[in-house]
């Protein structure tokens, strides 16, 4: 086993355990923390894949912003009388897990077999750890994907306005 494999197993295991913990913990705050762990493990996987920028962005965006927001809301609602309920009732749960297993099986099948005859599989396998620099991504973003990039700014703007409208209290004066 080379270091990369060891690290993959380590990060992968942490990610998976974290993910399962997310859906298992009763209290949302533990779920959120588990999710943060998963995200960190994924950031590690990204580093393994040579995607340093994505790894950093993963931590900044998910761990640094999105999850803080989650915690924030959990705490905010926790102040009230939030009845913490766990799982759904039996039948639905069983059906969900069966479906999930089928779904996973199919996903794994695709991952192992179905990609054989696609461009991904025929691409020259890269053995050396190729590092994608921020520069590369920036270049793509501002040339080939300029329009989508600009559109994302619109999405963010729309979200911004939407949130303001949603949380603004009735009749609240601007000040």
């Amino acid at each position, binding site marked *: 086993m080379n270091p990369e494999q060891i690290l993959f197993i380590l990060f992968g295991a942490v990610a998976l355990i974290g993910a399962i913990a997310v859906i298992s913990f009763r209290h949302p705050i533990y779920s959120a923390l588990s999710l943060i762990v998963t995200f960190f493990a994924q950031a590690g996987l990204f580093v393994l894949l040579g995607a340093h920028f994505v790894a950093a962005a993963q931590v900044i965006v998910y761990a640094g912003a999105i999850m803080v927001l989650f915690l924030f809301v959990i705490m905010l609602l926790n102040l009230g009388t939030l009845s913490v309920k766990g799982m759904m009732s039996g039948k639905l749960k069983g059906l969900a897990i069966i479906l999930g297993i089928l779904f996973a099986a199919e996903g794994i099948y695709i991952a192992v077999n179905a990609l054989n005859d696609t461009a991904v599989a025929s691409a020259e396998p890269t053995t050396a750890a190729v590092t994608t620099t921020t520069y590369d991504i920036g270049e793509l973003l501002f040339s080939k994907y300029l329009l989508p990039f600009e559109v994302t700014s619109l999405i963010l703007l729309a979200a911004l306005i939407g949130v303001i409208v*949603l949380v603004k209290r009735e009749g609240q004066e601007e000040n």
Partner: protein
Amino acid sequence: MALEYYLVLSALLFTTGVIGVLIRRNAIIIFMCIELMLNAANLAFVAISRSLGEATGQVFVFFVMTVAAAEVAIGLAIIVSVFKHQQTINVDEVNSLKG
């Protein structure tokens, strides 16, 4: 590391997210599970990007993150509003649209 391992991991993470969405009652956790699914997709993107030796997949991850951020902001705002009105965020209790 072969691509398959990453893709299998991605599939497993995604499935975990799907199951979480299906079995949890708390809207916030359901939301987290959605994030989990998005992240699983991101993992697949980056892995394939690496396999193809180009950065396009990572650019897509960037877009996914943007959408996720917007979605979380809106979603949480909705959850807060729902909580204000209904005093609960358990999805089985928020069923005014029940036929």
